[in-house]
């Protein structure tokens, strides 16, 4: 009888690496790219497509020319350096015409004004975007539209000041009437007072004040605006005006008051049912027929108003989605605390509804900003079509095709990507749930 020595392992085996075909890049590729005949074929086709694109685009980009005075000169330089059959990008066009892409036909000696307005805009929106900044900066944000208008269009400083006084009048009327008459009626009264001020007092007063103390800088006409200056002016104004309007419309649509509700529904459904380009044509063509000839209702202003209305209808629906997502308990809790309608909206409902709607709101904004290029169809100089058409009409640059699109597209991408990243950051920051 042989004796068995029982074997008892006392320590654990060292974990071993999985076999070579189960780990590392090979395993990853097998699992993700070549997991079956279908996927293998698709992968190979994909590699071919990417390779083919790279083969065409990379040499084209490598052969870029930055210093030339015309497309034919570009071609000559490329042919000389890279051989007669080489193709290359002619960025010399961008170098020579970038200022038109950025400022349109704004007078060259006044480029500092839009530049300053842009820098101040960054200061003005900073406290809106980042809660950690001092709240007092909001005062500057409130004043910014007037400063910006004055810097961009020029004219007398008194005009924006007197317009501002109209808002002061509105606030004053609201403040005195609100305790007695409630929010909607006193807001209406304030608006009436301000409208009377703007319609009848505005022009004579600012002219008179300018007569006493002239504070004028050079006028710049709207038709000299163009390029990204125009896109950003329309985009930013419409974005900042459409959000409050959209909130009001969303609340109106959920209101119990029949008139408010039906007006909001009609507005939203009408605007959403009509293409933006139709509204733009209305702005540029139809309004001209109804206004007395010679009345100079600025085309950019007309376009901004209609783009704002358009965006507001979409924002309203996005916010209504946010409102619908709130549990009923939140409304009841607000009632139980004894808050009135506006307090409840401001303190409890809206902060949550807006948080839910952030992705939708930001994608509306991104869409709106890109839609500003549609103004080309009403004769404004947008960066994509308007300015590009002007550049191509120059005999020196006629025939240039991809470069202007790539240039304008890159700038649009940077701005829109920035907006999207900001919204994701904001979502993460405001995340309070435990999902």
């Amino acid at each position, binding site marked *: 009888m042989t004796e068995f020595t029982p074997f008892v392992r006392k320590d654990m085996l060292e974990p071993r690496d999985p076999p070579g075909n189960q780990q590392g890049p090979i395993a990853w590729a097998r699992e993700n790219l070549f997991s079956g005949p279908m996927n293998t074929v698709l992968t190979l086709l994909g590699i071919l497509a990417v390779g083919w694109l790279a083969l065409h685009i990379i040499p084209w980009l490598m052969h870029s020319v930055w210093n030339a005075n015309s*497309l*034919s000169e570009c*071609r000559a330089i490329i042919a000389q350096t890279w051989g007669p059959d080489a193709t290359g990008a002619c960025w010399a066009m961008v170098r*020579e*015409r970038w200022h*038109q892409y950025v400022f349109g*036909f704004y*007078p*060259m000696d006044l480029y500092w004004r839009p530049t300053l307005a842009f820098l101040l805009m960054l200061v003005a929106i900073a406290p809106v975007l980042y809660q950690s900044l001092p709240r007092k900066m909001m005062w500057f944000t409130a004043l910014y539209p007037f400063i910006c208008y004055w810097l961009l269009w020029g004219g007398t400083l008194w005009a924006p000041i007197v317009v501002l006084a109209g808002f002061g009048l509105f606030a004053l009327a609201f403040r005195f009437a609100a305790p007695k008459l409630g929010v909607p009626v006193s807001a209406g009264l304030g608006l009436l007072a301000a409208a009377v001020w703007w319609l009848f007092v505005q022009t004579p007063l600012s002219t008179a004040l300018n007569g006493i103390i002239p504070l004028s800088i050079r006028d710049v*006409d709207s*038709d*000299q605006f163009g390029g990204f200056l125009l896109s950003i002016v329309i985009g930013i104004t419409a974005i900042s005006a459409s959000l409050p309007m959209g909130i009001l419309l969303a609340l109106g649509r959920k209101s119990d008051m029949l008139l408010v509700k039906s007006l909001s529904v009609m507005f939203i459904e009408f605007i959403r049912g009509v293409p933006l380009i139709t509204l733009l*044509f209305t702005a*540029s*063509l139809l309004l*001209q*027929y*109804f*206004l*007395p*000839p*010679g009345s100079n209702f600025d085309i950019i202003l007309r376009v901004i108003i209609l783009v704002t209305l358009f965006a507001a209808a979409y924002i309203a629906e996005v916010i209504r989605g946010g409102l619908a997502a709130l549990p009923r308990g939140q409304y009841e809790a607000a009632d139980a605390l004894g808050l009135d309608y506006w307090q409840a909206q401001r303190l409890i409902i809206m902060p949550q509804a807006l948080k839910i709607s952030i992705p939708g709101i930001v994608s509306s904004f991104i869409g709106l900003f890109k839609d500003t290029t549609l103004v*080309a*169809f*009403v*004769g*404004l*100089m947008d960066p994509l079509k*308007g300015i590009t*058409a*002007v550049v*191509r*009409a*120059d*005999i020196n640059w*006629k*025939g*240039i*095709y991809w470069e202007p699109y790539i240039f304008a597209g890159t700038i649009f991408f940077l701005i829109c990507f920035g907006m999207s990243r900001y919204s994701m950051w904001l979502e993460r920051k405001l995340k309070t749930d435990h999902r």
Partner: protein
Amino acid sequence: MKKSVFLGTLSAAALFAGIAGAGTLEDVKARGVLNCGVNVGLTGFGAPDANGNYQGFDVALCKAVAAAVLGDASKVKYAPTTGETRFTALASGEVDVLIRNSTWTFSRDVDLKFDFVGVNYYDGQGFMVKKDLGVSSAKELDGATVCIQTGTTTELNLADFFKANNLTYTPVTVADDSEGQRQYLAGACDAYTTDASGLAASRATMPDADNHIILPEIISKEPLGPLVRHGDNVWGDVVRWTFFALVAAEEYGVNKANIEEVASTTTNPEVKRLLGTEGDLGAMLGLDKEWAKRAIAANGNYGEIFEANIGSATPIKLARGLNALWTQGGLQYAPPFR
């Protein structure tokens, strides 16, 4: 009730438009600036340069009108117009005159209520093909693929031409001239068709211009001219005769350089009337004596404007062709100044 208010507003607006539109000449003088509707993207005819100054064959006519009416060729406010907005801009009074390579057609003149006051450029639709296609006439284009801008009258002309000659073709529609040029160069079509002036400009900027030819056939009539609102004949006369003054100046050899000298030395009574040293033509138009002189001095006579913007000295190299004076076998003909 609501409807009648609406109609009332409309007719009031129309009345306003009628009243204010009755005297464009007075409006322009009072404003001190001519609102001229122009193209912003047509090589040689109208486009702003790198400094934002408008240049071109059509733009020069705006300047001439401003010089005649206001005494200063720089007092023009150029209103950029697109193919869609141009006629409304004119009808609504946003611009005083539209000089935007617009073809004079029956329906535009009659139905849209405009007056074409002249033809500053006789254009026509042509074809460009690659030389190695071995085609020398448009009638040999049977079965060809043709690049054509969609939504334009050129598309209809093309269909008519091929049908009339019993030929077949495959259209490749493109959105605008730059795309058309690109598709043609990339070999997507055998022939590219658009206005002959546009073909010449495209060809001039191609990397291998010598490999492309413009076929001799012109398949449509495109008389391009300035237009004003119907019914404002005083203003129409001003624009019309400003243009004729430029044509007449070329005929009588008056140009930018010699105009002062001619004005003081000429013995030709017609030239004297034109330049205001004799007679009273300016007053009949509601302008001063030297209106035509200023118009000519602004950019030179018709021939000089042509040569400076689109003529053989420029890269576009358009021949005068139909736009030569009638004395040289062309169609440009100014009625007598008397």
